[in-house]
C-alpha cells in the first residue's frame, strides 16, 4: 500500500510501484480530469502539480509521488473557478477540450512563478500540444488571467 496526498486528501493505493501517477489518478482514484495523451511526456495532456511544480504524470512512477502534495485539475479551485479557468471561459479557449486540463495546470504553475507573463516566457514554459489549435486563445487567456490576478 502506498500513501498519497491528492488535492489535500490522504489516500492509499494498492498498485505496483512503477505504475505512472497518471493511471493511479485515472483508474484507481477516479480523477479523470487528468488526461492520457501520449504516455511519453511529449504532449502535456496529463500535467498535474507535485508540490506546486508542473509534471507530466504519465512519466512519474507512483513511488516518486509518495510523500508529495499532488494537485490535479479537480483540486485547483476551492469551489469557485480560478482566475485562469475564468480567463479560459472569457477567451472561449477550449474546442474539443481534451488537452485543456493539462494546459490549465501548466498555465497555473507558470503564472504562480511569473505574475507578469511575457510571450517568450509562455512559449518556453508551456510546451503542451493542442490538436484543435487553441494556442492563440491560450496566450490571450494567460495574459488576461495575469491581469485579473494582479488587480485582485
Amino acid at each position, binding site marked *: 500500500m502506498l500513501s498519497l496526498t491528492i488535492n489535500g486528501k490522504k489516500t492509499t493505493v494498492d498498485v505496483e510501484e512503477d505504475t505512472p501517477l497518471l493511471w493511479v489518478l485515472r483508474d484507481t482514484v477516479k480523477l479523470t480530469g487528468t488526461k492520457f495523451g501520449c504516455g511519453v511526456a511529449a504532449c502535456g495532456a496529463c500535467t498535474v502539480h507535485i508540490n506546486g511544480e508542473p509534471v507530466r504524470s504519465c512519466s512519474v512512477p507512483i513511488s516518486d509521488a509518495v510523500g508529495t502534495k499532488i494537485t490535479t485539475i479537480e483540486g485547483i479551485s476551492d469551489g469557485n473557478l480560478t482566475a485562469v479557468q475564468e480567463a479560459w471561459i472569457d477567451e472561449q479557449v477550449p474546442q*474539443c477540450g481534451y488537452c485543456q486540463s493539462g494546459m490549465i495546470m501548466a498555465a497555473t504553475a507558470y503564472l504562480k512563478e511569473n505574475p507578469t507573463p511575457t510571450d517568450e516566457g509562455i512559449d518556453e514554459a508551456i510546451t503542451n500540444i493542442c490538436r484543435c489549435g487553441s*494556442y492563440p486563445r491560450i496566450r490571450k487567456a494567460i495574459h488576461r488571467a495575469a491581469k485579473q490576478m494582479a488587480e485582485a
Partner: protein
Amino acid sequence: MALMKLTRRKFLIAGGLVGGGLAVGFGLGDDGPENAALQATTSSGEFALNAWIKINKSGEITFAIPQAEMGQGVYTSLSMLLAEELEVELSSVTPEMAPLAPVYVNSTALMDTLPFSDGHHQGEATIGAWGMKKIAGMLGVQATGGSTSVRNAWEPMQKAGAIAREMLVSAAAEEWNVSSSECVASKGTVTHKSSGKTASYGELVEAASALEIPDDIPLKPANARKIIGKSQPRIDIPEKVDGSAVYGVDIDLPNMAHAAVKLCPVFGGTVASWDDKAILNMPGVIKAVRFDTGVAVIADSFWRAKKAVEALPVTFDEGPNAALSSEAIFAEFEQQLASDEGRSYADRGEALEKISQADTVISATYKVPFLAHACMEPMNCTALVSDNDVEVWMPNQAQTLIAWFAEKAADVPAENVKLHTPYLGGGFGRRLEIDLVVMAVTIAKELKGRPVKLIWTRENDVQHDMYRPAAQASFKGTLTSSGEIDAWNHRVASPSVTRSFTKRMLPWADSDMPDNSTADGAGNIPYQISNMLMEHVPTPLEIPVGYWRSVGHSYNAFFTEGFMDEMAWAAKKDPLEFRLDHVSEHTDFTAVLQKLKEVSDWSTPLPEGRGRGIALHESFKSIVGQVVEISVNKDKEISIDKVFCVIDCGTVVNPDTVKAQMESGIIFGLSAALFGEITIEKGRVVQENFPDYDMVRLNNCPEIEVHLAPSGRPLGGVGEPSTPPIAPAVVNAIFAATKTRIRELPLSKHGYTA
C-alpha cells in the same frame, strides 16, 4: 460474398452508389411518427413535441442533437438554431445525444459526396439534388463530418423550434379560448396580448403534446433574428475547464475491466502464434484475447493490461505487404502519372494541344506524404456484451455505422444495440471509422456481462490509423502573350479514400469508381482557364486511407495553389493580382481577395528575410483566402509570423465559432506543412508518437487574424475550409522571401526548422 448479417430492417445497396460516397446498408425508415424515437427516451413528466424537442413540466428543454461535439461547437450552434425559433434563451436549452433513428439523417454529407446532386449547394432545386436527398433519407446515416452540421441542421432545427413553439401557443390559445394569433411566445412563456394572461412552456407542454404537429410554419426573416448571427458563448466550455467533461476515455462503469492491445505492425498481417499463458499470472490480468490482427489483454486497470500485453509473446505472419515502402509508393505514383491512364474531373478546351504547341511550358511535380490524425484523445471504445445485446460507449462521428458494426461483431439483434456518444477529444475524420468498435466488441465478447474499456496507446494510434493519402501531382501550364493562363494540365496520383473506406465496411463492394474527393480542389478550381484538363489516376495501395480534415482538398490545394503561384511569377505578375485576374467573373471570390489585400496590407513591401504568400481555396461550400507572413534565414529557420484569413461561408450562425474553426484548421494544416509525415518502411509505419510526429505548439504558432466576409452565398461549412490554403500560402511566402520553390511537404524534409 461475406456480408454483414441482414436483418428485417435493413438491406444493402451495392456498387452503384459507392463512387464518391458511402455504400452502406439502409435503414428503411420508421413507420411511426417522427417523434417516436425521442418519445421513447422521455422520463416521467416529459413530453417530446417533435423529433428534436423534449420539455418537462418544470419547463426544462432538452434538445436531441444528432451531431457529435468534437470541438467544432456544434452543441452551441445547433442549439442556437433551435432556440431562435422556439423563442427561448439559449441557456435554457440542454443538448442530449439523439437516439438512432432515420429522422436524424445527415443528408448534406451524402449530398456532398454522392454524385448527381450537383447544384444543391448553389441553392438550386435540381431533380438530382431532390433525388439525392430522398436517397440520403432512406440511408438514414447519422454522421458528423464533411463540415456539414450547420448546413444540414439549418432548416430542420429552426423548423423544429418553430413547430414546437406554435404547438405551445395553440395549447395556450385553446386553454384561454382565444385565437392563436392573439398570443405571443417569448422567453419560454406564452402571453395573451390583450388580457396579459401568461403560461410557461412547462405548464403548456402536456396539452401541446396532444396536438397535431402543424405543417410548415414560416421561419423568421433574417432581420428578426435575436440569437443567430451573434457570438454566443459555447455551452460545453464550462465543463471543459474544470476537468468534469466526460470523454470516451473517461467512461467508468461498475465492474468495468480494461483492455490494451498489441497489433501486427505490418498492414494486412495477422497473428501466427502466441503464448497467452506467459502473462496470465501478471498482476490484475483477467484474460488474454487473440483476434485476426493482434492480441489483447483484459486486466483490472489499463496500466496492468498494457504491461501484460507488452510482455505477451506473439509472432506475426506479416503477410504480402512486408516489403512495402514510401519510396516504392512514390515510384508507383511517378509511373502512374507518366502513363496514359486517368479519370478526368475537368476537361475543357484543348489543354494538351496548346501545351504541345507552346514554346514555353511551365512544369512542376508536387508531393505530399501520408498523415495521421493524432486526435488528442487516443482511440477508445467501451463495450458491454451480453448473450442477446450489446451496449457501446464510444467517441464517434458515425453513430449509425458504429451501431451496425457493434451489432455485427456482437451477433445480436439490431434492436438490442445501444450506443452512447460522449464528447470527442478531437475527430478530424478518424472517428468515422469502425475499427475500434469491432475490436472492442470482439474483446468484450470474451468477458460477457462485464464492460470492457479498450484504450489504444498513442503508438497504436499513430501506427494503425487510416491515413490521409500520400499523393503526387504533375503540372504543365502555358501563358498567353499577355500573361494569362492559356492551358492547365494537372494530373494527380493517389489512392481513393472513399474506396478504402467502403472496402473496410463492405469488402465485396471494392471497385474502382469515380471519387470526387480525389479531385476536390483540383478539378473544381474557380480560375477562368479556357483550356484545362485535370485528371486523377487511381492508385490503390495496401495502406488504409481515410477522411482527414478537408480530405482531398488537403493536398489538392497545396498542388493547385502552389502551381498557381508559379504561373503568376512566370507571368511576372503579382500573385494576388494574378488570381484576381482569373476570378473576374466571380464576385464572391473577387470580394475575398480584395478583402485579403486590404487587411493584410499586401501592397506594402516587407523587409529582407521576410515574405508574404497567398492562397485562395473553396471547400465545403466556403471560400477561404489566406495571406501568410514569414521570416526565414539562410539556416532555414522559419517563423510563421502572421496569418490573415478571410472566409465567406454565407450566413454566419455563431461568429466566434467560425473564427475559432478558422484558427483551428490553420494550425492543423500548419502542423502538417511544417512537420507532418508518416513514412512506410517494411510494410509498417516508422513514426511512433509525438516526438517523431510533431505538432505546432505555442512557440511556433502564428498570430492569426480572421475576417468574416459573408457575401450572401448559401451556407458553407467551417470545420475544414481553413486547412487547405495554409500549406500553399506558406510555400508561396518562402518563395517570395527566398526564391526557393518548395514542391514537397513537409518543410522539415527540406531542412527547415520552425
